């Protein structure tokens, strides 16, 4: 084995506190040396160097940037148009697009970043931002002279900061809402409770009515959905899923309570059977229970309204507020950054990359092309700019977010800590344990907290 000693080097003077320049270099060289069959000692002689980031100034010659995103074909088409526009405005800069589906995207990003070949501009997610930042994979745009921060409020930028560095520019925001299949509710001859003030109990009661009225074919709602509902649930209990210090902050019993509620609803008909619940966690939007007509109401990110509607055929879907706990004030909602634009720490052209990010979030024409496909723009000016050209469903989502934003209280949502990228899968697994009666709520909650804490610890 090569003497692969690399004691934690003093962080570079110019670097941000924790995420010093990536020290990936030694490993890369070791791999190359091994692969080339050269003496293993070569691995040890190659001393670590700082991040390869080029100078933060615009280059005089032609520049090629690589930009990558995940999404479906609608996003690919819009983004290609935006890129063409950017290249027209900056003829010196060429942008190579790389797109993939969600899973493939992260696999490819992980591999290329490990190989020292990450794309320059990266679409990022709240679950991965801290992880890539902390491992030194991202460039601190706060240090860039070319990034235009004036578009955003400090609070908005804070949602992309980690350990003081600005590693993600919030491209969009979104918020949890309940989607109601109005057509179905009317067909069943039911009346929705007042959703401006409804509680989880009201939803449960309504769900049982749906089941009764439909003869058990349709149910009320599944009170689950990615990390969004657990976060909201924790907040309604005056807690957070993740603390500011990057730990698992929620009380396991509280989380377990949510899952036991799900199980009880499934038992009494307010929610569908365990099988549908499990499927709803796995299947893409197009096959979710509200699209296939198994539930009348479903939690969703409000910007997905347009996609749900298209998938659900002719049914009328509308956005209503999330239920709360009895007696609790209504101020637990949160807005979540939908997506970020990050710049790789491996880029040779941070200045040009910053220009592209500016363009994507702020350019008048470009943001119109991109519309609300990635979510409601986080910058107020951009929102105003695109508002007139939005489709009615996107306008509804925009209004919803703005209403939530007005009523916000408490701290903005912390980033998912390094090591917690897989939180969604882990949540799902423990939910399944509970709805299939294999664990009690508190047991599952404790298991979740232990496992996730272990992962966070392993990562740091």
């Amino acid at each position, binding site marked *: 084995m090569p003497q692969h000693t690399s004691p934690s080097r003093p962080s570079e003077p110019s670097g941000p506190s924790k995420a010093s320049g990536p020290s990936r270099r030694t490993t890369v060289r070791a*791999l190359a040396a091994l692969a080339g069959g050269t003496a293993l000692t070569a691995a040890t002689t190659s001393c670590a160097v700082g991040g390869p980031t080029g100078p933060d100034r615009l280059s005089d010659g032609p520049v090629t940037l690589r930009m990558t995103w995940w999404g479906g*074909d609608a996003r690919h088409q819009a983004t290609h148009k935006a890129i063409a526009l950017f290249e027209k405005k900056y003829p010196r800069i060429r942008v190579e697009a790389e797109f993939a589906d969600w899973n493939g995207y992260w696999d490819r990003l992980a*591999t*290329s970043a490990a190989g020292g*070949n990450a794309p320059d501009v990266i679409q990022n997610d709240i679950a991965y931002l801290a992880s890539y930042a902390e491992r030194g994979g991202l460039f601190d745009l706060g240090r860039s002279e070319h990034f235009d921060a004036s578009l955003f409020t400090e609070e908005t930028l804070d949602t992309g900061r980690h350990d003081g560095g600005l590693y993600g520019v919030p491209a969009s925001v979104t918020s949890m809402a309940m989607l109601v299949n109005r057509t179905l509710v009317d067909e069943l001859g039911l009346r929705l409770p007042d959703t401006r003030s409804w509680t989880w109990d009201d939803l449960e009661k309504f769900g049982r009515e749906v089941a009764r009225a439909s003869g058990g074919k349709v149910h009320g709602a599944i009170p689950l959905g990615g990390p969004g509902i657990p976060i909201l649930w924790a907040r309604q209990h005056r807690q957070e899923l993740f603390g500011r210090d990057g730990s698992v902050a929620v009380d396991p019993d509280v989380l377990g309570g949510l899952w036991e509620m799900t199980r009880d609803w499934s038992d009494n008909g307010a929610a569908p059977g365990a099988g549908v619940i499990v499927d709803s966690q796995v299947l893409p939007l197009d096959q979710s229970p509200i699209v296939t007509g198994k539930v009348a109401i479903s939690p969703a990110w409000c910007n997905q309204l347009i996609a749900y509607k298209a998938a659900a055929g002719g049914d009328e879907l509308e956005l209503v507020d999330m239920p709360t706990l009895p007696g609790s004030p209504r101020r637990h909602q949160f807005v979540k950054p939908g997506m970020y634009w990050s710049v790789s720490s491996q880029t040779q052209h941070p200045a040009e990359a910053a220009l592209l990010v500016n363009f994507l979030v702020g350019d008048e024409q470009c943001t119109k092309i991109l519309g609300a496909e990635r979510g409601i723009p986080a910058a107020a000016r951009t929102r105003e700019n695109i508002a007139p050209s939005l489709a009615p469903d996107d306008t509804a989502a925009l209004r919803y977010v703005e209403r939530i934003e007005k009523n916000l209280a408490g701290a903005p949502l912390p980033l998912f800590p390094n090591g917690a990228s897989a939180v969604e899968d882990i949540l799902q697994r423990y939910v399944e344990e509970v709805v299939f009666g294999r664990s009690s709520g508190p047991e599952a909650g404790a298991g979740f907290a232990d496992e996730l804490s272990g992962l966070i610890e392993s990562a740091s």
Partner: protein
Amino acid sequence: MTTETADQPPLSSAPAPAPSGTAAPVTGKPARTSLARAGKHVLMVAMVVIALYPVVWMAVSSLRPEGRIFTDTGIFLDTFNPENYTNGWNALSHPFSTYLLNSAIVTLGSIIGNLVSCSMAAYAFARLSFRFRRTTFAIMLMSIMLPIHVVIVPQYVIFAQLGWINTFLPLIVPKFLAVDGFFVFLMVQFIRGLPRELDEAARIDGAGHARIFLQIILPLMKPALATAAIFTFIWTWGDFFTQLVFVTDPALYTVPVALRSFIDAQSQSSYGAMFAMNVVSLLPVLLAFAVGQRYLIRGIATTGMK
């Protein structure tokens, strides 16, 4: 050993009176034979239904409007929506023909590479007694026991150093270097099934290994070569992970990577278009298989050895 060259009847020939003893193995009265034959057909039809239903369902769904795909498990088409095909063809940054062509290049290169390099290595393992034969064979097998996910990063580094990322080279060149142990092993097994007397005889005639390999072994292992070619075609055509990782330019995307780009779990996906293009991309493989499987059979039928 007899010298009989019992050719089989053409496959499509009538099942009735087959020449000298090549008939079905059930030796009984004709009535029983035809009963058994009918039973066999019933069984085959049942198997075909089980095998085909889902595939037919997919093909039918590709002609349905988007909203009905997940709610209809039947295979009867009451609406005809060919627009999934036109939409799918043009949905991504390039027309789908680009991805088909890219996949064809990668696949063709892989087939040639595998056939040449794996058959050579297999000949050595099966017919030559050289030093470290067992050790090297074990290493060959070991190399296919490690999951791709832990070797992909080191491999990526190698290809990046060579400047091969975003070309087809990382997908094709390894095939010329016999990294697919599966095929080496497959061919070894087939060569070992060939009678040694043939190469012994050639050796006595003064033939070297090159000649034995090219003129005796290769022609005899046509079924194995056909099998390897078919499998390489199918697996390369469907391989997702390496093609995703090593090729990032959409102009160079292959079919599997393009197909996944239709699907996004978080927004609206074009399942109809994805199914349509899935059907389109199945056609070449199906064609390749239909053609290839004939060689698979003919190859051995014409040798009539032993």
